[in-house]
């Protein structure tokens, strides 16, 4: 093994300099690739997503408490106790030290204990099932149905429904009820926060609030068949007055065109799998539509019992 004892290629100075160089290249390269792109999760536009953004940043910073010492010790110990460094202390039989071990059982326990408190509190704070209302107790109800491969949004209070077009007023919480007539899907608007699964015969709850007007992307995040990737939808957060105008105008024009949505039309026009659907609007004719869609999968209705 005489070959090993030669002038070291890696001196501390070289290591540090090349590390800095690599870091610069990485940062610069990353900047090139993200500059001008939308970082939806780190650039939130809603009440829930903003809290989640800080939760993400906070825990990431907290994790440095672990990462930095580990990396530093790895680097230092590897350098100092390299086999070729005969000057370093060598204690081949040292195999425990209660104080040290107590420290590194203790430190992670403290970190995790702190994080557990955060977890408990934020699990309640950000619970998707928690209903949000604005100061004057208002909220908008939207019923969502995941279909193959499109989204149906029903606005029961306004008597309209839309495919792949979700509009919501800025500053007023929207309470979603989410179901499906498709393989398990997931409803998610990254800019506004929190995704939840959409499942047949079940209704999931989610409350979100847009704080800024704008157009955002909504997504399906759970694979549900061939058209999965194309299941995006447009989310428009608009001022309240504009939202009211839109709901009224839609209702009016749809009833003028005779485009009504009831369970029969739903089964006829929407259940069939289709991809890349353009936005379509309806006047809601049956305000129990959402319930009926869910009930299709419920045994008591299927067996005909109870009626």
């Amino acid at each position: 093994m005489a070959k090993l004892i030669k002038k070291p290629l890696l001196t501390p100075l070289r290591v540090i300099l090349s590390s800095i160089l690599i870091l610069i290249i990485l940062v610069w390269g990353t900047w090139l690739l993200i500059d001008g792109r939308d970082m939806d999760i780190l650039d939130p536009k809603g009440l829930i997503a903003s809290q989640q953004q800080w939760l993400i940043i906070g825990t990431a910073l907290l994790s440095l408490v672990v990462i930095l010492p580990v990396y530093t010790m790895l680097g230092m110990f590897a350098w100092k106790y390299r086999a070729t460094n005969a000057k370093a202390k060598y204690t081949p039989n040292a195999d425990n030290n209660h104080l040290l071990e107590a420290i590194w059982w203790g430190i992670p326990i403290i970190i995790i204990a702190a994080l557990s408190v955060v977890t408990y509190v934020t699990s309640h704070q950000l619970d998707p099932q928690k209903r949000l209302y604005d100061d004057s107790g208002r909220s908008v109800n939207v019923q969502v149905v995941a279909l193959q491969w499109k989204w149906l949004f029903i606005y029961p209070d306004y008597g309209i429904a839309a495919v792949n077009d979700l509009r919501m007023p800025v500053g007023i919480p929207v309470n979603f009820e989410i179901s499906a007539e498709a393989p398990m899907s997931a409803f998610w608007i990254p800019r506004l926060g929190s995704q939840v699964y959409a499942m047949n015969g079940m209704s999931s709850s989610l409350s979100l609030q847009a704080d800024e007007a704008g157009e955002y992307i909504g997504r399906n995040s759970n694979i549900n068949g061939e058209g999965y990737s194309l299941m995006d939808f447009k989310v428009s957060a608009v001022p309240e007055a504009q939202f009211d105008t839109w709901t009224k105008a839609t209702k009016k024009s749809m009833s003028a065109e005779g485009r009504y949505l009831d369970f029969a039309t739903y089964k006829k026009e929407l259940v069939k799998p289709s991809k890349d659907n353009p936005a379509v609007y309806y006047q809601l004719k049956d305000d129990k539509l959402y319930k009926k869609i869910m009930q299709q999968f419920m045994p008591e209705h299927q067996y005909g019992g109870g009626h």
Partner: protein
Amino acid sequence: MLGKLSWETALPQDIVTLGGVIMGGLGLLAVIAAMTYYKKWGWLWRHWLTSLDPKKIGIMYIAVSALMLLRGLADAAMLRAQQAVFANMADSPVSADLFQQVFSAHGTIMIFFVAMGIIFGVINLIMPLQIGARDVAFPLLNAISFWLFFAGMALMNVSLAIGGEFSTAGWLAYPPLSGLEYSPGPGVDYWIWSLQVSGIGSLLSGVNFLVTIFTMRRKGMTLMKMPIFTWSVVASMLLVVFVFPILTVTLTLLSLDRTLETHFFTSDMGGNPMMYVNLIWAWGHPEVYILILPAFGIFSEVVAALCGKRLFGYVSMVWALMAISVLSFTVWLHHFFTMGGGANVNAFFGIMTMIIAIPTGVKVFNWLFTMYRGRVRFDTPMLWFMGFVVTFTIGGVTGVMLAVPGIDFQVHNTLFLVAHFHNVIIGGVVFGMFAGYAYWFPKFTGFRLHEGLGKAAFWSWLIGFVLAFGPLYILGFMGAVRRLDSYDPSLGWQGLFIVAGIGLLIILLGVFFQVVQLAYSIWKRKELAVGPDPWNGRTLEWATPTPVPEYNFATLPTVHERDAFWEQKQEKDKAKKLSYEAIHLPKNTGYGVYVGAASFVIGFAVIWHIWWLALVGVAATVILVIMSSLWEDSEKELSAKEVESIETKLWGQKA
């Protein structure tokens, strides 16, 4: 007569699959032709396929897993090529349907037929040696386990050639997508049966290894003197024994839904898909610990040996392993916080998940302090370890982030999640296996792997890994969900996907170096030859001659201390005057191969609804099991003289 099988249903549906089948078929034909030409079939059958020697079974596991790794990587390359280049082209060769098959196959193969296979291979090779045993507790059962694994692997690959499709439902096949209504083809059935068959093999292995460890340790080796890798095997196999039955039952219920049209997991008629999601993760989460714990064990051995120091905090390490093992049963729900479990339920599972970070963190610090005041040699196993610390720490941290339900709601099922689990599985499991490969290779071959090529492979993997998965974290923050075969080009994601693709190419370069390394090392084996203890090892596997003889130890060692071989070496009184005695070893037998073949037939027949053939398969399996149980003349004897001559030869050549 042939159930649902016909020319129309059997042929590959698309050109890419057909190409894969043709290439795979030609490769197989070439191997068969070469074997026939060199008249190697008898040799293969007598020395390998029918062998009950755990070392040979271990090597077969690893060989199969290595081949499957290549297939899994080819799948990964297709996924990356699609996302980086073809995603927004009108005439992409990869359709959405094919893309979904490929990622389902990629996950399934990498977990079941690569990671699991390598783990079982390494355990077979190392664990009996470490506890000073000559064999495992049930040698034939061990072979059967391997052949069930092989049969599952074969079914998985046959899906391309016969039926032409694999599942499109992801590696865990959530219903209702995996149900009959949404996936009527044979793909999901192939998925079910390849896992079912290999899963039963895994369960049997778990039982076998646990019994081996608990009953066959050498005299004096109390539990707290066991080598740490063996402890990691205990922790991992306990999980296997508890959770694989869950998988078996879950898959059975899903296949009943699909074949007999029952309603366990359908979304109507009283079925409940959420139950499947719970069950599959009740198996699935412990499964990832089944994979990572033995890797932790390997790292513990490597660090101690290459730093020339006792493992720091052995007792802590054991407690940490067992704590992780137990805790891993209490976290499955974190895979579906977004299913609406409620705040308290989510908080409970989130906190339990984070608690696992504590023993894991302790392990990392203990490894680092094994380096402290040691003599660190930077051979490839050590490099893999250091690469592991660098990558796995990030994976652990992002895991803790994902464990906070409030964060998970935003990054679940995004590429952030994908980056996280590749971070722990590649950085942890894969690097661990590579460390073990470089570390133990000379023990079984008598020569080292070429160091330069090994280092080249390491650096390619490490750099490739960072480039392949770093961008995915960023894409996750941009709102990119997983499993996308296309995306809106105006989002500007393509650059990051291209970098990820380049990362994969660099990883593939690393794999290329590994293939070359193996070939080159075999070619130069004379120059790379080493003695039985090349690393100045500490545990009993280094006490045997090299290559390890079939019986492992000519005279069984007695153990007084934790690092039993280290202790032997310190006592300089090498009492070389040994008296040999006759050794009994299991005879070779074809039962393992036959049981594997019969299981393959059962799986294949049920997939295609060929009921008479399924009955034949079941009958054959039952008869084979009864026959093998009645097999009495199952041992051969090596006389004391034969043992002596083998030992003299093996020790002599290195003296």
